[in-house]
């Protein structure tokens, strides 16, 4: 018999506990409680501390990351009901122009303009996209891609709402740290609410529409109305992000409809993983600071950024979050081969 001592193989074991059985929470010991709580509490706590410790430039990056995070969450919600959007810039721009316009022309304070832009932007986006809600897949994506371009060129040529110069000297939020906290809290609240929503019966119907809309229709459910509701929710979140940025910059221009706001959220979801919202959040929290820290490289920044993105998509098609989640629930030990 050959000597096989010292040869090891990897042994993998999935944790047997079903952490959450719909309504019953299995809490057996402190160890289990920490096991469940830690991956949730740690990122939340970390994000809540960040605005207090960061200053200046990196605090702005944090606000940016949260804004892109909100757009990514809004993208993920639409994707959950089968609407693949390439037009998050529409949501962002609608909120930005509503808040900016209300502030510039009517001199309303941010306390009024931000909520108004959130609701109004949601309604506007749902209203604009409701007529094309019957389109599926790439056709819907094309229309959403066109809308921000259309509005951008419309503002450029007609000169309404400040035209190419934009609207400046808008009211700021009181304090940079407060803005950062507002962004972080909104981001966390949105993440929490969307995760609750998608696990409810309402979310079940939304995901069923993505999987087989005819089966849902035969269940007596008006899928177009449900999709419009999802558009309103996603639009509101995107519009809030836009309104926040407008008051943060104290300036509003056509760049609110820039392609960046459409593409980066999709990239964030591609990196983080679709369907759980946590993936979208994680993706944007990695991508935005990464892209900022590569700024020192100058022109090479975008090239390197693209390579990182491509490698992650090829190597981890399920998304970083789903990979980490799977690994977290697995024990890996080295067992001696007998």
């Amino acid at each position, binding site marked *: 018999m050959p000597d096989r001592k010292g040869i090891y193989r990897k042994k993998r074991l999935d944790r047997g506990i079903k952490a959450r059985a719909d309504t019953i929470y299995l809490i057996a010991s402190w160890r289990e409680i920490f096991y469940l709580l830690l991956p949730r509490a740690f990122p939340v706590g970390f994000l809540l501390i960040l605005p207090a410790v960061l200053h200046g430039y990196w605090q702005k990056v944090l606000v940016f990351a949260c804004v892109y995070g909100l757009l990514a969450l809004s993208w993920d919600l639409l994707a959950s009901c089968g609407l693949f959007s390439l037009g998050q810039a529409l949501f962002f721009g609608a909120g930005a122009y509503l808040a900016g316009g209300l502030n510039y022309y009517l001199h309303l304070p941010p306390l009024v303009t931000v909520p108004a832009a959130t609701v109004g932007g949601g309604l506007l986006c749902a209203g604009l996209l409701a007529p094309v809600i019957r389109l599926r897949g790439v056709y819907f994506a094309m229309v959403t891609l066109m809308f921000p371009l259309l509005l951008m060129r419309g503002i450029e040529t007609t000169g309404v709402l400040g035209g190419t110069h934009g609207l400046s000297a808008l009211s700021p939020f009181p304090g940079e740290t407060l803005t950062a906290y507002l962004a972080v809290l909104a981001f966390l609240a949105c993440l929490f609410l969307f995760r609750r929503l998608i696990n409810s019966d309402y979310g079940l*119907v939304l995901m069923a529409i993505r999987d087989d809309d005819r*089966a849902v229709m035969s*269940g007596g459910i008006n899928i177009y109305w449900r999709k419009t509701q999802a558009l309103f929710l996603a639009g509101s979140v995107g519009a809030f992000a836009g309104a926040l940025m407008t008051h943060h910059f104290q300036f509003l221009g056509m760049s609110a409809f820039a392609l960046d706001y459409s593409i980066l959220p999709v990239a964030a979801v591609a990196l983080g993983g679709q369907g759980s919202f946590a993936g979208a959040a994680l993706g944007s929290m990695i991508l935005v600071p990464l892209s900022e820290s590569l700024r020192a490289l100058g022109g090479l920044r975008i090239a390197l950024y693209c390579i990182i993105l491509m490698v992650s998509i090829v190597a981890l098609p399920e998304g970083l979050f789903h990979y980490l989640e799977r690994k977290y629930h697995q024990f890996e030990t080295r067992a001696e081969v007998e």
Partner: protein
Amino acid sequence: MSKASETILAVERVRKRFGGILAVFDVSFELKAGEFLGIIGPNGSGKTTLVNLITGFVKPDGGRVFFKGRDITSFMPYRIADMGIARTFQMVRLFYNLPAYKNIIIPLCSSRVRRLGAGRYGEKDDMAVDLLDDMGFERDSYVPYKTAGSLPHGYLKRLDLARAMALRPEVLILDELFSGMSLSEVASTLPLIEKFHEEGLSIIMIEHRLKELFRVVDRVLVLNFGRKIADGSPQEVMENEEVRKAYLGIEVEIL
């Protein structure tokens, strides 16, 4: 006029053409409240298209469909389902990555079920499991909680039936419910449908298993090449010369 003889569903000269093929041509029939109607016909005779025309999944080129005297021809499928016409699919359309009982939650979220005073927040899971229990998915077994994709075909068909019944319909349309089911599965499902019929549900049943069909239905409608060739009691239909020709003698075995 007694309630039993009231017309609940009327189809008037509907027609549908797919390219050069006349899938359904000038088919008319009436369904009385509480009636059990069977629709038979060889493959490609337009049975499923007729169901799609009634339930709004396909828009007819001509003709009308009336439900309780109301013209529902141009309605969307969800509106027709909302009014109380539920259907099953020949190729079951389910959500395979969801637990079986979660499939039933979706119709329970509809406004029809809410209107009928059921499906309030927090009761839907129990209602779904109850409904599946009636369909032979025993609540104390693991079956209702397994993902639909891991269940055998016969269970999927019954799950589709449960999904249709969750809407509390007034008309139930079964599109080849028994296809792909084993004899024992058919034997256990047929009494369920007979029970629904006895409780006053109007049923249209499309079926290739003529023996089982002829045992339970009140009336049979025969389609061939998109046209109605016979309409009457099972006995009359079996004696019809044209039907015998269309089926090339299969009826002889049944008799």
